[in-house]
């Protein structure tokens, strides 16, 4: 479901974190958080996060967002600033909930909140699983 976390036009506005947010010409494109430094707008590469379907009520229906962070933990903290309540769904006692796994660029991570994120990573939060055999 497409939607806007930051409302419709104009193209530039200030998000809650004090950063600039830019929405591309296609409203389905994930909003990007830009940083402002010395009045010069810089575009920063961010990880793309696909929000689980049941949590999109916290992102106004937006499926894909971008956020900064060098680790999963930092990423979730950044997401929490823009989408309050998201962190509680993913984190328990400072660690990723046991029922939640994180896929980073197609591979499930081992390190929970410590898993590293690259600038252009694609991140999914998926249910953790079990096997039999």
């Amino acid at each position, binding site marked *: 479901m497409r939607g806007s976390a930051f409302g419709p036009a104009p193209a530039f506005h200030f998000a809650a974190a004090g950063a600039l947010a830019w929405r591309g010409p296609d409203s389905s494109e994930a909003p990007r958080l830009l940083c402002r430094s010395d009045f010069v707008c810089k575009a920063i590469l961010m990880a793309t996060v696909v929000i689980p*379907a*049941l949590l999109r*009520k916290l992102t106004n229906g937006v499926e894909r967002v971008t956020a900064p962070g060098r680790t999963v933990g930092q990423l979730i903290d950044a997401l929490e600033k823009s989408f309050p309540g998201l962190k509680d769904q993913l984190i328990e006692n400072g660690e990723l909930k*046991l029922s939640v796994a994180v896929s980073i660029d*197609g591979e499930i991570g081992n390190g929970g909140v410590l898993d590293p994120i690259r600038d252009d990573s694609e991140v999914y939060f998926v249910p953790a*699983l*079990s*096997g*039999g*055999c």
Partner: protein
Amino acid sequence: MAGSENGSNNGFRVIGTRPIRHDGVDKVTGRAQYGADYALPGMLHGKVLRSPYAHARIKSIRVDKALAMPGVKAIITGADLPDIVGSTAQLGEMIVNTHYLSLNLMARDKVMYDGHAVAAVAATSAHIAEQALAMIEVDYEPLPHVMSAEEAMKPGAPILLPELRSQGDDGKEVHPTNVAGHIQLKHGDLDQGFAEADFIVEREFRTATIHQGYIEPHAALAVHNSDGRVTIYCPTQGTFNVRTLTATILQIPDGNIRVVPAEIGGGFGGKTTVYLEPLAVLLSRKTGRPVKMVMTRAEVLRATGPTSGTWIKARMGATRGGRIVAAKFWMAYEAGAFPGSPFGAGAMTTAGPYDIPNLHIDSYDVVVNRPKVAAYRAPGAPTSAFACECVVDELAEKCGIDPLEFRIMNGSHEGTAQPAGPPFKKIGFIETCNALAASDHYKSKLTGPNRGRGVAAGFWFNGGFQSSAIVNLHADGSVSVVTGSVDIGGSRVAMAMVAAEVLGVDITDVRPVVADTDSIGHTDVTGGSRITLATGYAVYEAANDVVRQLKERAAKLWERKPDEIEFQSGTLRARGADTPPLTIAQIAPRLARTGGPITGRATLNAGFVGAVGAAFAATCIDVEVDPETGKVRILRSTVAQDAGRALHPAYVEGQMQGATAQGVGWALSEEYFYDENGILRNTGLLDYRMPTCLDLPMIETIIVEVPNPAHPLGVRGVGEVPIVPPMAAIANAIYRAVGIRMTQLPISPPRLLAAILAKQHAEQRHPVAAG
């Protein structure tokens, strides 16, 4: 077929060959020690009293008469177990709510299913212990029970666990419920997708509770020493699981418990948790003597962990040209008495073989008054695939396209989004289907009345998680490979083959050892099709560690630097020198004088390999239906599967055949039969009907190898995915045999016969015009 008889395969010397398994002689001569074979001096025997009700409050338990019996040494009830509140443990691939696990181990204020443990007795003989059970007085207050997800989800259904609450859209708790969990996966625009479809098929499916069917019942022998140290001998898929779960349930330190693995007579996921072990430890602590407990078959069926029955609604749409454009699944998995069905995995695997642009899946975890479910071979996937693959088959027919060709046209490939979202990496689904399509079976003609051919596909992840390995080089040049991975399917010899390959020694010079929890580093459960992948990787690394050390020793002998030493095919050479090379057998006697013994070691967390190591299978089954009895005979069965790299082809084939056999039972005969009081009526293997070799033809296998780029040997897990397709393949075959789409499992003779008669009756009332 992968592998060859002469030992040469894809440049490997050992990998791909078929050496005799190291444990084979002991197993065929009866020397192998299984859980029930263990005995210790002074040992007592334990037995469990079990609930005769599906749902009841325990008003009181009196044990005085039983305790007074000669030979009875101790009795425990739920009051002897510590309360564990709000605790969850991750044991590799398992996430366990230890509070509910403890309640499942022994009831506290309520019994939740027929067979639920209520008390346990330790006595000087098993017979005395059984007699003592009858002397325990339990006052029950029966409560209303619910036996299916459908009943449990109805408004006004009896609530099993008062603490479960549904959640409103605002995230606030609303009202008590039997729905313990909900997962939703979606991408694309479902409405748009169905609008594009020329054909839409919608069906509702139901599958029954069934058991893993391991022949060996659960057993445990526990010794609780006076110093607090505990030793448990048991058959298990996870020694470290047993240690951690027992420690958590009894609130004792992990490190106080040593778990010694017995040989295991089947597990299939059902022996990844604990039922008897903590009880045996408690009884041993109370009596100061070893206590041995062995389940009967009836106990295994009533009170261990079968797999979920399911209720699934599937709706899929395709264009006239054969492109699947939309799919919607609604799935309810019966968890048993406590939450924790494989509803997540079922959601994440259904439709996994297909590239579907618009997908919506809702999956629910529902508690019912049945035993708490446990993992069973690709948990969640076989039943969700049953629904998906039957609908895919119907869509293929409507499009007028061959069912395998339809699957290939829509097949997942590198970059396809999985149902959960992440893209697949390199996978072999298309290759697997092509291999099946090219098989002699699929190309052959099937003739004769009431005969039909069906195909289906399946998908399962790989597990990674933690494994440890030690490779010891002995003075005679032989090698021992020590791991913590219990061998449930030939992994022991596979580990030896990896070491033999790396070290260039003969497989007969390698001895694989499965160690107890004090003798090897942490190793997660044997399950999730992860052992050859993850523990094999650890062995590979440990063997390479041996090679590194050998180079150092040779360098010392030859007065060179280690990086000037080469190692190949078991031989060390000094680069660019005329020095005679040394084999491992030649350098091994000199280890003491060059620095001491050589031990290679490795530990790793392979992670949940996920997309990279994904596994696919495709199955073709021919059936013949007896229209007068409804009995289905399997005429021919072929399964194709991408193994990545088959280390030991015979054991890969064994996994494929065994899983197919289990799928046949799941499809045609196995189900838990409860009466109106919620009491299980088929508590033995005569009435819980599993297929035997008399019910099956030789199952043909095709090993496809699309190497897993994330693994040094290209391995993908093989143990689970072949159980995913057979039920749908059989249902699709039955359709082609008698023209009836069966949507409920098992397709037992009475059920199929009723459908055949109903069809005949309908045709008599409304005959189809000729010509």
